[in-house]
C-alpha cells in the first residue's frame, strides 16, 4: 500500500514540477507548485514525518503560495516576460545545478554510498511515539536557543515589511 501511494504521489510531484516550468502563464505555474508541494507533503507523511508534512501544507502550500500569487499580481507580467526571456544564462545555470543534484542523488540511491551515520531514533520509534512529540521534545530542550533566535529572525522580517512596503513609514 505504501509503495503504491509512494509511486502515485511521487509521479504527481514530478509531473507537476515539470509543468511548473513549462507553463507560460505564471499563475498556472503557481497552481502546479501547490500541487507539487501537496504531493511532497504526502511523501513526507509516508516517511512518518507528520510534522513536516503538516508544515509543508500549512506554511508552504498555504501562506507562501498566497504570497507567490500576490507577488505575481504585483508585477507587470507582460514587461517581466520580455525581461526574463533575456536571461538565457539562467537556464544554463539551472540545467547545470539540476545535473549535479541528479548525479548526487543517483550516487546515493544506487551505490548506497555516503549515506552517513544512522541517527539514534529509528523509524519504528517515530511511528510509536509520534513525530510531533519527538520534534517538540528535542526542539524545546536541546535546541531551545536556536528556537529563541528564530523569533528574532521573524522580528527582523516584520521590520523589513514596514520599511520596504508601507506607503509612509
Amino acid at each position, binding site marked *: 500500500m505504501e509503495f503504491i501511494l509512494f509511486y502515485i504521489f511521487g509521479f504527481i510531484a514530478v509531473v507537476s514540477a515539470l509543468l511548473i516550468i513549462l507553463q507560460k502563464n505564471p499563475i498556472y505555474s503557481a497552481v502546479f507548485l501547490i500541487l507539487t508541494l501537496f504531493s511532497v507533503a504526502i511523501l513526507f507523511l509516508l516517511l512518518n514525518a507528520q510534522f513536516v508534512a503538516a508544515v509543508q501544507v500549512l506554511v508552504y502550500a498555504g501562506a507562501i503560495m498566497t504570497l507567490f500569487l500576490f507577488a505575481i499580481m504585483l508585477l507587470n507580467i507582460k514587461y517581466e516576460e520580455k525581461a526574463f526571456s533575456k536571461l538565457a544564462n539562467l537556464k544554463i545555470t539551472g540545467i547545470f545545478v539540476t545535473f549535479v543534484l541528479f548525479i548526487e542523488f543517483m550516487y546515493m540511491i544506487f551505490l548506497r554510498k*555516503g549515506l552517513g551515520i544512522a541517527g539514534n531514533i529509528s523509524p519504528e520509534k517515530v511511528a510509536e*511515539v509520534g513525530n510531533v512529540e519527538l520534534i517538540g521534545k528535542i526542539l524545546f530542550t536541546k535546541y531551545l536557543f536556536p528556537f529563541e533566535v528564530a523569533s528574532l*529572525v521573524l522580528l527582523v522580517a516584520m521590520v523589513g515589511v514596514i520599511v520596504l512596503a508601507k506607503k509612509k513609514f
Partner: protein
Amino acid sequence: MDYSIPTINLSVIGPEIIILLTAVSVLIIGLFPNYRRWSISIVFIGIIFAFYDIYYLWNLNQVGFDGMVLADNFALLFDIIFLIGTLLTLLLSGNFINQYIRGTGEYLSLILFATLGMMLMASTNDLIVIFLGLETLSISLYILAAFRRSREDSLEAGLKYFLLGAFTTGFLLYGIALIYGSTGTTNIYSILNFLKDGSVEIGILFYIGMILIIVGFGFKAAFVPFHMWVPDVYEGSATPVTAFMSAGVKAASFAVFLRLFITGFSPIISQITGILAVLAILTMTVGNVIAIVQTNIKRMLAYSSIAHAGYILVALTALSRNIESEFSAASIMYYILVYTFMNIGAFGVVIYMEKSEEEVLKISDYAGLGFKKPFAAICMTLFMFSLAGIPPTAGFMGKLYIFSSAVESELYGLAVIGVLNAVIAVYYYLRVVIFMYMKEAVLDFSYLSARPVMALSLSISVGGIIYLGIFPQSLINLLTNIL
C-alpha cells in the same frame, strides 16, 4: 525519557541580550516622535553596557545551553570588533538619520539586529545557530541596502543582494544538511570528534558539504567568483550602510571560518589548501585590477574590499596548511580589526564629502581637498596609506603579518602574489591622495561644515590605525594566546 534538560546560563549571552534589548527599545521609541531624539543615546548606552559585559566575561570562558553557546575570548574578541564597527558606523550616520528621521527607530534597530546576528555567529558552536545568526544579519542588511526606497539604485542594491544572498543561503544550508547527514550532528566539536574517531569513513558528501559552506560564507565575505553583487550593492546602499556591511559581514564570515577550520574541520582542512589558495589569488587579483579603473570612490572601495578579503584569505590558506599555527590565526584577527578601522574610516570621509541632495562620489571631486579641509584630507590620506599598506600605519603591519604567515606555512608563491597585489593596490589608493593634494579644486567645498561627531569617529579610526601600527606587539601577543 529521550530528552535532557539543558543548562540555561544566561550570562553567556549577556552581550547579546543587552544588544537585543537596546535594539527593541529603539525600535519602540522610534514610534513616538516626541521621544525619538533619545534613541541614539540609548544605543550608545547599550553598546557601552555590552562592552562592559564583555570585559566582565573576558577570560571566564563560560559555556551555556549544553555547549551550544560559548563566551570564550575568541568570541568576545569578535564581539568587540563588531561593536567597534557598529559604534563607528553610528557616529557617521547622523546625516543619514536626519534625512530619514521617521525611520530612525528602524535604521538603528536594524543595524543592531545585524550586529546581534554577527555576535551570534561568532559565539556559537552549532551550525544551526550560525545559520540563524547569518539570517538575522543578512535579512537586516537586505533591508538596510534598500532603505532609501525612493531611489532606484538603492532598490536595485537591495534586490540584487537579496536574490543572490538567498541563493547562496541555499548552498550554505545544503552544505550544513550534508554535514549533518554524514556526521549526525551539527555541533562543531562533535564534528571534530567524528573526524578524529575515524571509525566511520568520511564520505564524499562531507567534503561537498564543507565546500558548500565555504561557498556560502565566501559569498558573504565577497570572494571571487562570488563577488558580482559587491560593487552594485556597495554603490546603491547609503554610504553608512556600505561602511557597516563592508567591515562587519567580512569580520563575521571570517569568525565562522576560523571557528570551523580550527575546531570542526581541523583534521581534514589541509586537503583543501589548494582550493583556498586559488580563491585567494583570484580574489586579490580581480579585486585590485578592477579597482584601478574605477572613477567612483564607492565602487573603488568596493573592489578594494574584495581585494582585502583576498589578503585575509591568504592567511586563512596558510592556516589551513598548518592548522597549529597560532600566528596565522592571530594575523587574521589582527587584520580584521585593522580593516574595520581603516575601511569604516575611509567610508567616513566619503560620507563627510557627500551632499545631501546630490552625491559627490567621483574620485576627481576630491581634488584640492587637502588645502580646503585639511583634517578630512589628512584622515583620508592615512586611511589610504593604511589600506595600501604603507608604514607606519596598521595596514602595513597587517599585511606584513599575513604574508609572513604564508611564508611560515611555506606558501612562498602565494606570498609573492600577495605582495605583487599589494604593490598594484598602492596605485589606486595613492591616486586619491594625489588628487587631494596635487590638483586644483573643481568643487566649492563651502557646503562642508564642521561635524564634531563625524570627526570623533574619524579620529577614533585614525587613532586605531596609528596605535596598532606602531605598537602591534601587545595585541599580537594577546591574539596568539586567544585560541
